[in-house]
């Protein structure tokens, strides 16, 4: 976890990069992409369940961020996170999916046996189906807490809401997931 001083230093570095981009150095923007793409990609992947969709959302969000870079006030990472988070929620609201996911996943397997891999794939699919049944705001809170491992305080800062509201969302998401999965896995 980043310390407060570390965040301030990082914010200063980001501001310097932004100044360079705004003064015409397009290539400097790649520093921001490299610095922040992983957590943003994981958020998009957790929210959509599809690597292809997550990549598209990431690409569109960085293009949008580049076009509006002069409007950044405060921390760039929080600002660009909100762009990605909104894109994910828009996608969830618009899409009607009957099945999911990770179908194009080409990451190497880390399971020891084919049986273990089969079990994990089944859980992954069931978990994705259960997550897809949640309202976007509940899924977002669950993904940020349990997949991204963020604290409630950090989530509140990024989403500009209260810790109490987020705890409520996470609790409701957990209860819904437990209800959907416990018959098979508990």
């Amino acid at each position, binding site marked *: 976890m980043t310390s407060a001083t570390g965040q301030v230093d990082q914010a200063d570095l980001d501001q*310097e990069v932004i100044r360079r981009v705004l003064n015409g150095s397009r290539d400097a923007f790649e520093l921001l992409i490299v610095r922040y793409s992983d957590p943003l*990609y994981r958020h998009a*992947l957790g929210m959509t369940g599809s690597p292809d969709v997550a990549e598209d959302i990431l690409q569109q969000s960085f*293009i949008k961020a580049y076009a509006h870079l002069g409007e950044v006030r405060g921390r760039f990472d929080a600002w660009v996170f909100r762009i990605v988070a909104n894109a994910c929620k828009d996608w969830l609201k618009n899409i009607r999916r009957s099945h999911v996911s990770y179908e194009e996943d080409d990451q190497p397997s880390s399971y020891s046996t084919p049986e273990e891999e089969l079990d*994990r794939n089944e859980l992954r699919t069931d*978990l994705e189906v259960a997550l897809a049944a949640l309202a976007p705001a509940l899924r977002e809170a669950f993904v940020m807490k349990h*997949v991204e491992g963020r604290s409630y305080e950090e989530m509140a800062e990024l989403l500009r809401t209260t810790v109490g509201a987020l705890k409520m969302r996470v609790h409701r998401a957990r209860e819904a*997931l437990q209800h959907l*999965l416990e018959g098979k896995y508990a």
Partner: protein
Amino acid sequence: MYDDLNAPEDHSDPQLGFQPRSKTDDADSALPNHLPDREVPIPNGGSTAVLHQWLDGEVSIAVVRATQGGNDSVDLWNKIHDEAETLRSRTTPLYVHKRIMDSLPEDTYRGRPWYKRTFALNPATMLVAAAALLGIGAIVAHAVLK
């Protein structure tokens, strides 16, 4: 911050004042023999609250396991967290960085006039600005006093 899913599974937790149940202190053993088994489910509002506390890292795993259905809940959430851990280790495919850079417009900020450019406010730029203002002030004063 991650929840502690590797806490010891020992049911006793002296800090919380919890001791493992034994046959002798089991409340059921004190009941008369003719009473039928309980068929009405015990409301699990308490165990749900404890589960949330554990998932938020506020109580140990032993406390959850001691509640009704606690072992099943812990097993389920350990599986979910294993899956979440896999997702947490994912990184952006490298070709995505290039794809994003290739799709950025070339001329958005190139060729901006100097007065639209941004300047970092540091001691050096402040010194230059102060010197420039002093110079302008001196010229204006000289012209007025002439």
